[in-house]
C-alpha cells in the first residue's frame, strides 16, 4: 500500500525538470509528519500524565475539570499559551531571542529520524545511527546558550551557563554509555543494536529470547548511569537546578512569555521521550517482547509500552527525590559517572576477549 501511494505521488508530480526534486521532498515530508504528529501528541499528553501521576503519588487529584478525566487539559494549556502576549525585552538581541526556543526544540525532534519503531520501520536506517543521535542532541545546548545570551539579562545568562555546563557534562558520561553499548553490539545501527539483544548466549542460552538476554542485565551499571545522566541531561528533577528556583529565578527562559516559554517546555518533554526511547532501544530490547510466546503483539506496541514505563519513571523520580545542589550535580557527573563508565568500559573490553564473552 505504501509503495502504491509512493508511485501514485511520483506519477502526480512527474512531467518536468522538477520531477526529481519535488516528489522525493514531498514524500519525505509526509514521512516526517507521520512520525512527528504522534510525537507531538505524546509530548503534549506527557504533561497531563505527569500531573496525573504526581497527583496519584501525592494522594490528590490531578487536573480533572477540562474534559473527561481532564483529558482536554493539554489543549486548553496550548490555547492559553498561544493567546498570551509575546514580550521581547527592549535590549534583547532581536533575531536570536526568537531563535533560542527553536534551537532548543529542533534537535529534540530531529533526532527521531534514526529511531527504529520496528525491524524495518525508521525514517532513515543509518549505519552510524547512534553517532547521529549524539551529534544532533549535542546541538541542543545552543538553544539554551542563545536564549540566555539574547535575553540580555544577568539572570538568564547565569541560568544559561549553569544549564549548558550541566548538559555538556552529562553528555560525556552518556557518550561513554553509548560507547559500551556499541562495543557489545559491534554496530552503531539502531536496528542491529536491538537485534543483537535477541540472541541470549548467556547462561548457556537458557534465557534466550527473554528479557534476561537484553543489555540491561549484563551492562547494569551502564544502564543505571545512562538513566541518571538522561535525567540530568534533560534538566529534570532532581537535577533541575537549571531553573534555580531558590537562587536565580527560572533560568535561561526567565525573559520568555507565552509560546516562547512553552517551546522550551515542549523541548524538555520531547527530549524526555527521546532519552527514554534510546534507553529502551539500547538496554531494554527495543521492540522485542519480554517472552518469545508474546510474539503475536506487534513490536511497536512493545516499544511504546517500554518507553512509556521509562518516561513514567522520570516522573516517579520527580515525585520521590529531593533536589540536588549544583556542585553535587557536577561532582556526580564528572567524578563518579565518568570514572565508573571508564572502568566498566575496560571491564567489558576484557570480558569480550575472555572465554565468557556473551556477545558473539
Amino acid at each position, binding site marked *: 500500500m505504501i509503495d502504491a501511494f509512493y508511485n501514485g505521488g511520483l506519477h502526480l508530480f512527474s512531467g518536468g525538470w522538477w520531477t526529481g*526534486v519535488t516528489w522525493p521532498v514531498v514524500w519525505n515530508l509526509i514521512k516526517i509528519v507521520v512520525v512527528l504528529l504522534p510525537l507531538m501528541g505524546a509530548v503534549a499528553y506527557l504533561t497531563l500524565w505527569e500531573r496525573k501521576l504526581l497527583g496519584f503519588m501525592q494522594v490528590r487529584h490531578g487536573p480533572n475539570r477540562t474534559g473527561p478525566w481532564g483529558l482536554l487539559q493539554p489543549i486548553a494549556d496550548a490555547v492559553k499559551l498561544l493567546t498570551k502576549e509575546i514580550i521581547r525585552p527592549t535590549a534583547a538581541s532581536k533575531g536570536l531571542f526568537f531563535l533560542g526556543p527553536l534551537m532548543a526544540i529542533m534537535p529534540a525532534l530531529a533526532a527521531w529520524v534514526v529511531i527504529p519503531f520496528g525491524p524495518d520501520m525508521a525514517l532513515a536506517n543509518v549505519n552510524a545511527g547512534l553517532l547521529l543521535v*549524539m551529534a544532533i542532541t549535542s546541538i541542543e545546548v545552543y538553544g539554551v*546558550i542563545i536564549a540566555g545570551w539574547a535575553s540580555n539579562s544577568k539572570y538568564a*545568562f547565569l541560568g544559561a551557563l549553569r544549564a549548558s555546563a550541566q548538559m*555538556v557534562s552529562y*553528555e560525556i558520561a552518556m557518550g561513554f554509555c553509548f560507547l559500551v553499548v556499541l562495543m557489545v553490539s559491534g554496530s552503531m545501527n539502531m536496528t542491529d543494536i536491538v537485534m543483537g539483544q535477541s540472541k541470549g548466549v548467556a547462561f548457556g542460552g537458557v534465557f534466550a529470547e527473554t528479557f534476561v538476554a537484553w543489555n540491561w542485565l549484563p551492562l547494569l551499571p551502564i544502564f543505571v548511569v545512562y538513566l541518571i545522566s538522561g535525567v540530568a541531561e534533560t534538566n529534570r528533577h532532581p537535577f533541575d537546578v537549571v531553573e534555580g528556583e531558590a537562587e536565580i529565578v527560572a533560568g535561561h527562559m526567565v525573559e520568555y512569555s507565552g509560546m516562547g516559554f512553552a517551546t522550551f517546555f515542549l523541548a524538555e518533554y520531547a527530549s524526555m521521550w527521546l532519552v527514554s526511547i534510546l534507553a529502551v532501544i539500547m538496554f531494554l530490547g527495543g521492540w522485542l517482547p519480554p517472552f518469545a510466546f508474546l510474539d503475536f503483539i506487534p513490536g511497536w506496541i512493545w516499544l511504546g509500552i517500554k518507553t512509556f514505563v521509562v518516561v513514567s519513571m522520570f516522573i516517579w523520580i520527580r515525585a520521590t527525590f529531593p533536589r540536588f545542589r549544583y556542585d553535587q550535580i557536577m561532582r556526580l557527573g564528572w567524578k563518579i559517572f565518568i570514572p565508573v563508565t571508564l572502568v566498566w568500559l575496560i571491564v567489558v573490553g576484557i570480558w569480550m576477549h575472555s572465554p565468557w564473552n556473551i556477545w558473539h
Partner: protein
Amino acid sequence: MDVKTGFFYMFALVMLFSAFRVITARNPVHAVLFLMLTFSQAAGVWLLLKAEFLAIALVLVYLGAVMVLFLFVVMMLDIHIDSLRQGFWRHLPLALGIGGLISLEMAMVLFGGFRTGDAPVVPETVANAAGQVVQYSNTKALGTLLYTHYLYPIEIAAVLLLIAMVTAIALTLRERKDSKKIDPSMQVRVRASDRLELIKLAPTQAPQPVEPEAEATTEEPKK
C-alpha cells in the same frame, strides 16, 4: 536536476553567505553563530558526498563541543566594536595583499586536480578479498583503515584526549585547608544519631518530695 543538486546549491549558498557574515558581522557572538552555521552546512555537503561519518564527526566535535567553549569565551569578552574598527582603511591594502596571496596559493594547489578527470564517485558495492561483491560502507572502510594502517596515530590521539579529560577532573580535586565546602559523600552517610540525641526519660516522673527547708522559708513570713 535531482534532489542532491538542489540540496547542494542550498547548502553551498547558505555556507558562502554565513562564511561571509562571520567576518562582516558587527557583533562577535553573531559571528560565532554564523561560524556554527557554516560548519553545519559543510557537514551537509559532506553528507551529500556520502562521507556520513566525517559529517557526523564534524557536527559532534566542532558544533557540539568546541564551538560551545568558543561561544562561552566570546560571550563573556568585553569587546568594543568601535575600537576594533579603527584603522580599517589603513590596514586594508596589506590585508588585501595577504588575502590575494593565500587565494593564489590555494588556487595553485587545488586547480592542479580540478576538473581534469571525472568527478569522484563513491562506489555502491565493492569486491572483497574473496572476490564477493559486498555493500560498500564508507564508515566501515574508514574504520578499517584507521584501526589497521593508522592505529598508532589514532591511539595516541585518543590517549591524549583521555589524559586531557582526566587532568581536567584531577585539577578540581585539590583541597584547600580553609575551604568550607561540604563533602557530599559525608553528607549522605550521615545517620540520624549524629545529628539528634535521644534521651531516655521515664514516661511519668514520681512526685518529688518537697524539701522541708524550702517549706519553712515560704511559711515563715506568715508567722
